[in-house]
């Protein structure tokens, strides 16, 4: 009697183990098949490079994530043995892990801060900073808005300042109608928010708070597209993809109104809202062959891949390549 119960349990346990093994087994099986398939596609590229193993752990900005993911996707064909994981806990979240030495590479949509540099130093972590692409923060209004085509940075500051009293478009510029001004923007944890407030309000994270925030830029797009009196800001890729629904404003920083385009973002004439995107690499980890291979691959392909996912590549990556030699 006792034995039969025991047997039942052992059977159950064995079944459970078998199930887990099957899951894991079929997992790695498909993986191998996948890898060899992609190997076949890229035999020339793969045969020249030495086969590497090991792990690369990446975290950070959700803005930079699409570029890094694209690089990881292509790198997988080249080095199927390397385990690359990319997470996106935001520039701030990624930096916290980076300065603690928990990750190898940090995606960042802003330069590293002094306090983060200090924390890294305290832990004995040295890093390399690489620019990988540009993004232009776009200020957009509704398609039916016919009173504004360009806006000055002073007007933007008047609208978005911490103690802003602006309630209608007329409050900003007497030539504009007395319609209520409805504001949309990213949430306070976002690197976009930090950069915009720093450029427009001269102090990072200082902004009026009575606007509709969302971490999801698609929500902002929908909000502005559906509200004639709306204004908001987000990354260039989201404007590019929704050009038919939105109208982008030219920004006048004293040198005449400039529209965000691939050209004006790249040559930085779209000022001050053109921003570089970075990756930070733990310098000690650069000695690991798979990390070095990945970073080199990243820079070699950043031009095409960043453009494919909606960003503006640098003019030349030669200076960046110098930095990792």
């Amino acid at each position: 009697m006792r034995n039969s119960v025991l047997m039942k349990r052992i059977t159950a346990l064995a079944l459970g183990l078998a199930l887990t093994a099957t899951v894991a087994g079929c997992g790695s099986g498909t993986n191998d098949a996948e890898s060899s398939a992609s190997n076949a596609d890229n035999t020339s590229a793969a045969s020249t490079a030495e086969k590497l193993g090991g792990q690369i752990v990446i975290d950070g900005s959700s803005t930079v994530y699409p570029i890094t993911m694209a690089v990881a996707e292509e790198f997988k064909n080249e080095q199927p043995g390397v385990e690359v994981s990319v997470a996106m806990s935001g520039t701030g979240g990624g930096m916290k892990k980076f300065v603690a030495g928990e990750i190898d590479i940090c995606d960042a949509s802003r330069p590293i801060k002094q306090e983060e540099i200090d924390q890294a130093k305290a832990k004995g972590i040295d890093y390399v900073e690489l620019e990988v692409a540009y993004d232009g923060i776009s200020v957009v209004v509704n398609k039916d808005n016919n009173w504004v085509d360009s806006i000055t940075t002073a007007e933007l500051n008047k609208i978005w300042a911490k103690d802003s009293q602006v309630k209608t478009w007329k409050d900003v510029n007497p030539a504009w109608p007395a319609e209520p001004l409805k504001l949309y923007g990213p949430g306070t944890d976002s690197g976009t928010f930090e950069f915009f407030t720093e450029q427009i309000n001269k102090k990072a994270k200082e902004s009026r708070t009575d606007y509709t925030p969302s971490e999801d830029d698609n929500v902002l797009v929908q909000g502005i597209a559906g509200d004639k009196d709306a204004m908001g800001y987000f990354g260039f890729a989201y404007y590019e993809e929704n050009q038919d629904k939105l109208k982008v404003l030219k920004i006048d920083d004293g040198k005449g109104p400039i529209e965000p385009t691939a050209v004006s973002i790249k040559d930085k004439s779209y000022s001050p809202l053109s921003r570089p995107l970075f990756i930070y690499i733990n310098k000690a980890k650069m000695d690991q062959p798979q990390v070095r291979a990945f970073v080199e691959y990243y820079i070699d392909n950043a031009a095409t891949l960043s453009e494919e996912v909606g960003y503006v590549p640098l003019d030349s990556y030669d200076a960046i390549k110098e930095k990792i030699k």
Partner: protein
Amino acid sequence: MNYVKYRKLKNSIFHGVIFCITLIGIVILAILLIDIIKRGVPFLTRTFFTNFPSRFPNKAGILPGIVGSINIILLTIAFAVPVGLGTAIYLEEYAKNNRMTKFIKINISNLSGTPSIVYGLLGLAVFVRTLGLGKSILSGALTMSLVVLPIVIVSSQEAIKAVPQYLRHGSYALGATKWQTIRKIVIPSALPGIFTGVILSVSRALGESAPLLMVGAATYVSKLPDNVFSVFTALPLQIYYWMGLPKEDFKDLAAAGIIVLLAILLTTNAITIVLRNKYQRSIE
């Protein structure tokens, strides 16, 4: 006479009102499902199940998410059910009905209402950092079992409470010890209720993304996990990422991901329900 009519009228009005209220939920669910199916089905190709995520919507797949999520729920159940059931048995069968027990019971009920991100923080501090398990499946599953533990405990407690007292008395009358009674009488009779708890836990564990994000689950992994210490991703994270991308196609891809998530959820629940019914019958 008039009064009777008035009461009957009231009766049928309330019947109608409550029926409409029931409909609200069903209609909203139907609209959501129809929208998701309409958008997602065209993307449910064979490659969607076998490929890794990609920047090209038509090449993108969800395999690492599926493998990650299945691993997470299996491990979560393996951790949460024994601990949860043990706690419930102790609280209902052994613990004296004193202040301390009441205090523990109240706290368990409170824990089931704690936002899951709090468990994520706990998991990050304890499993990832202090115990050094890293951003692994193991950390994720341990954290997730904390999230679902209160559900397992409370539903098992209810199930054990519902076992009629005369069954226990009958068992004792035959000379069975307390442990024999619990093992042979109480647990088998309570099993259907315990399975209900497991169903609820699986649903919760599959859908949660916040605690996994906190313990550092990746959104993209280049290899499938080969052991419990591997980095991983899960279905909700993949869906959430696709939802946020600017390209319209990725939103349809997210819809396809939601269909897969629903399918896995319904399958695991169906398995549990079949098991539950089997035990229910064997008791009767």
